[in-house]
């Protein structure tokens, strides 16, 4: 997975997408790569897992080898107009930017292509060995991956169209782009992940993703006789809770066997501690 130049991480809300993104980035840095992590949404999850309050549009250094930025929409739009469409600054501000914003809110694909454009532009700049994107939630991943295609259907000629063409090529190149779907071993995340896998198989916009199951409970090394023998009380309660939760998880894992399992982390951990622990697990695999 880490041989790619871009990894897009996605998953249903609440499955730990940002933690996994941060962990993957730490792992890649540990292997000596120059890494950029990008938050594609305006949520602060990635920032917190990197030990920051927030991330700016300008890439900032988190630690040697690791940079991070967040795609804030107005800034991304401005850069898109300047770098990709070659619109001079004087006309960028004001009416044009606002007109473009109106367009981006209405016409399918435009908003997503601006966000995807920023990420793919960073890949193309080749200042990093690896770009890891904390992507949009699973429900929006299709419209983002398909955005360049949507735009070419909408806009037959012109600069926006030309930009969409190279984006599609880059995304579809399996040596460049990889994808991680993060899930939990629960009904809704598993069902949505299966639906996303079907969609991705049908649309061929990106090479087949890997699935990471997060917060997986370890096996309890005790027989049911031992558990019964413990007698009523918190020891037995915790054991019954654990075995029941684990059985439920294992059932969902057989529905969708993941490429990697990350452990449930017990107790008081800060978001950066969570990312560091998960990165260690990644190293052991």
């Amino acid at each position, binding site marked *: 997975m880490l041989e790619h130049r871009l990894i897009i991480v996605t998953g*249903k*809300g*609440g*499955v730990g997408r940002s933690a996994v993104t941060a962990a993957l980035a730490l792992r890649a840095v540990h292997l000596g790569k120059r890494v950029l992590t990008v938050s594609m949404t305006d*949520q602060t*999850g990635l920032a*917190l897992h990197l030990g920051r309050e927030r991330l700016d549009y300008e890439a900032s250094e988190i630690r040697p080898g690791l940079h991070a930025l967040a795609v804030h929409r107005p800034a991304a739009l401005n850069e898109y107009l300047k770098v990709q*469409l070659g*619109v001079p600054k004087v*006309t960028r501000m*004001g*009416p*044009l930017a*606002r*007109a*473009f*914003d*109106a*367009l981006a*809110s*209405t*016409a*399918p*694909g435009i*908003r997503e292509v601006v966000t995807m454009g920023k990420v793919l532009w960073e890949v193309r700049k080749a200042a990093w060995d690896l770009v890891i994107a904390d992507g949009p*939630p699973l429900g929006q991943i299709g419209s983002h991956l398909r955005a360049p295609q949507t735009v070419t259907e*909408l*806009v*037959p*000629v*012109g*600069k*926006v*169209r030309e930009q969409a063409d190279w984006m599609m090529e880059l995304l579809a190149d399996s040596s460049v782009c990889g994808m991680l779907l993060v899930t*939990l071993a629960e*009904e809704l*995340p598993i*069902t949505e992940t299966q639906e996303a896998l079907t969609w991705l198989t049908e649309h061929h916009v990106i090479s087949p993703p890997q699935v990471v199951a997060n917060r997986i409970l370890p096996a*309890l*090394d*005790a027989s049911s006789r*031992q*558990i019964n023998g*413990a007698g009523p009380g*918190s*020891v*037995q*309660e*915790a*054991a*019954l*809770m*654990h075995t*029941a*939760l684990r059985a*439920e998880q294992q059932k969902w894992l057989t529905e969708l066997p993941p490429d990697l399992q990350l452990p449930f982390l*017990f*107790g*008081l951990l800060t*978001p950066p501690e969570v990312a560091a622990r998960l990165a260690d697990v990644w190293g052991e695999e």
Partner: protein
Amino acid sequence: MTSKVLLITGGGGVGKTTLSAALAVTAARNGVRTLVVTIDPARRLATALGLKNLGSEPSPHKNEPNLWAAMLDASASWKAIAHRHAPADVADRLVDNPFFEAATQHFPASQSYASAEEMANYVETRAWDLVVIDTPPSAGGIEFFSAPAEMRDLVGGRLLRWLTGGALPGRRTLFTLTARPALRIAGAALGSDLLERVAEFLMDMRTMYDGLARRAVQIEQHFRDARTVVVTTADPAPLREAARFYRELPDRVPDPDAIVFNRVLPDGWHNPKPPTDGPLIENLVRWGAEAHRQTEVRKEFAALWKTDIATVPWRPKTPTTLDDLAALIAKAKGLNLERLGVVPQ
């Protein structure tokens, strides 16, 4: 008879849909005629509620006399909204326009608005004592309450004004966008009549303005009359969403009537006894650490925002029957069911 409204909000993955259903079942079993409007329930939960297909038509439950359930279909709701608020010919044109679907998916407030308008429709039929609304996950929490104002603003021409550089054109034949220098450049970049098509679409959207503005005022009145439950777990992301209810201005967001921590571990696991070793003790120690973390997070939240907290226990099995759902509320601590309208006063 007037319907009370119970809004269940919170971040993604906290169990909003399950708790909405659980509160609705509890209300129904207390003799309250209840409709629960869910969004994207798990299959087993949908089955328990007797829901088969997506659709906003409420259906009575086979085995639970006072319970009705419906599932929000935002796309269908938006088509109905267009037909309700725009002239018939314009509405037909709107729903066939590919921009319509994109716009109603893109506007951050649009799923919330669709849900809020359905809420108002259900309340006004007065067929139920209580309408329980599972709010859209995309809304996170507080955005649900600003959705009507947001939609009114958007439909009213904010985007169109931007597109035309300030003026709102009166008739579609009277304006040519390319006459404006800035838009000529945009036109060159986009290489087509795209901007004009967008402008035409936005002008069609504007015909909904009067109807939608009136409706928004009514919806906001329903919000003021509603009870609000904020659901969270002890995880950082949903906690940030929950805290926004206290950080935002009170005229934007109501004070929650209950803060519910879901998936709570038992109290007695903090200090495992007896102090021996072995896998069972190790297991209790790690779960005890998790229980301790949860307690600390709840204490911190309660102290910071000076609020009472209700708890719902972590059940190893997802509820699959109405009895499971009712048991969830029966085992909850600190929930004032009278205040929420779930138990008659």
